[in-house]
């Protein structure tokens, strides 16, 4: 995986934004925090603060979280504009005031770049680890769920470019597996039909063993409540533990499985 620079990142997300109203609305609700206590800082709903929170969640969680493609695209554009401003300033670098402004702008751009690139990189690493699983779970990168009002809610887990990466990676992986191992498998497994493409998915379907590993969602994590547990609407999962005692700002220790849907709906944030 070559080092990701900002131009690559911009290219990756230059495509059509897949804007999910669902996630953005709950972000705005959840982010009305006092500055001293939230990770966001200066302006709680600024793009940078939102991205920082997404980044922190992504780093802490063992499996892939939904991506707000719109947010990433917006930040990439802001970065590009700021880089243009910096380039302009560089022409008049003799002027001490310009030099000062230049250094300030540059520091900030470095900060935003760091978060954005690390966010994308963490996601790519997670995709690589469980590529086959994500391909089978999200064939077009999105998850479709029916909510309480019987509407279909789409949540984007893989952006279009990430989908492309995942597809390419799984293709390479399958080819590698085939060349090194599967070609030499005993014919019993081939069902006497050698013309069938023997793939890892096929072995999985035979249910002898599970060949495709899902990501490890059963690790324990610390998380922080963003909204009061007693106000939560049940998400229909009968196994979900009782959160009504937990208020905003409470820290909880739980298996990631148990809180995953709440992290996705931004009612709980992970602690880095």
């Amino acid at each position, binding site marked *: 995986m070559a080092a990701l620079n900002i131009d690559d990142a911009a290219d990756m997300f230059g495509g059509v934004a897949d804007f999910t109203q669902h996630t953005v609305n709950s972000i705005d609700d959840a982010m009305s925090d*006092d*500055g*001293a*206590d939230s*990770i*966001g*800082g*200066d302006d709680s709903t*600024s*793009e940078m*603060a939102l991205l*920082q929170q997404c980044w*922190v969640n992504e780093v802490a969680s063992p499996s892939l979280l939904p991506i707000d493609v719109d947010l990433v695209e917006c930040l990439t554009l802001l*970065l590009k504009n*700021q880089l243009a401003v910096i380039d302009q300033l560089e022409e008049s670098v003799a002027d001490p*005031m310009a030099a*000062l402004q230049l*250094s*300030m*702008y540059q*520091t900030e*751009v470095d*900060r*935003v770049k*760091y978060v954005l690139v690390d966010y994308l990189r963490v996601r790519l690493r997670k995709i690589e680890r469980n590529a086959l699983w994500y391909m089978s779970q999200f064939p077009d990168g999105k998850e479709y769920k029916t909510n309480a009002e019987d509407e279909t809610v789409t949540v984007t887990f893989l952006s279009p470019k990430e989908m492309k990466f995942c597809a390419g990676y799984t293709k390479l992986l399958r080819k590698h*597996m085939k060349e*090194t*191992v*599967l070609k*030499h*498998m005993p014919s019993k497994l081939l069902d006497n039909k050698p013309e069938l493409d023997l793939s*890892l998915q096929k072995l999985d379907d035979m249910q*002898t*063993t*599970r060949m*495709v*590993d*899902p990501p*490890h969602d*059963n*690790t*324990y994590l*610390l998380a922080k409540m963003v909204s009061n547990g007693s106000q939560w609407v049940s998400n229909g999962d009968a*196994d*979900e*533990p009782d*959160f009504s*005692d*937990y*208020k905003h*700002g*409470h*820290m909880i*220790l*739980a*298996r990631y499985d*148990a*809180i995953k849907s709440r992290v996705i709906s931004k009612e709980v944030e992970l*602690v*880095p």
Partner: protein
Amino acid sequence: MMDFLAGSMPLTIIPAFDCGRLSFISGDYGPFVATMPIQVPLWLALSLRQTKRCRLVPPPWLTTSYLQAAVDYEKDPANEAFFTAAQNPQDPEGPEIPLPHHYHEAATAILDCAAEDLQNPKSLPPLLSDLSYLRSSKSSLVLKRLSHTLESRSGTFEDGAPDVVYNMQSGWKSHEVQVFKGVTYKLMNTSHRIHYGGDTGPTGGGGGGGRRGGGGGGGGRRQFGGNRGRRNFEHRSNRGGKEDENIPGNGEGVGGGSQESMVDEDGLELAAVDEEELMEPMRMGGEEGINKFR
């Protein structure tokens, strides 16, 4: 990473230059007028301070009186919860101000860079280290309580692990969390594995099915060979009570009896699993088999 996140904390500076309104990605700052205080994020304040373009105004929580109040609160054995807020020394009639989430990182950075701007800078580091010591001893109490809870649950092996959520208190700040989570994650994941079998954690590897259902046996059989070494280590540490894990060691030592018998069964199980594991790669091919030898 914590230092980075601390960077967005707002701080007041007194710039030594004049500048118009500047628009950054994270917001607009300015106009900067020399000798007039202005609020900027910590990263900007520190970067300007290092080039001697400004002076920091000491934040109210980074003063002797505030930190002393914090230390006194934490020392008081009646206060089980973490210290959260105290009187603003610059504004005695006003509301209490909370201790910032990244107080430790911010304080270290400010003391490093701009100690002369603070009042009484020599008194602050000992207060800060007292505070973090007291808070981390409180967090180890939480950890002890947690491990006791785990022991009391050790008798119940229902099918599948319950989705239990443990309540930590509120008031945790960034520093205590970092110190706490290293030990805690290991404790939780290990005890989960001991009680419910299967694998937790990224170093475990495949056999996802065993996670929810089937107790120790069914899950345990799906361990990778590479895990054997790691489990052996934990086997020993459960027996001995290692020095570097003296915090959970206390908890596990108390319930040592019940745990040890668990480990014995585990130990026997280990022997059985070893042979099975050796045979497995020959029986099944594909990704898992390859992974064993990776």
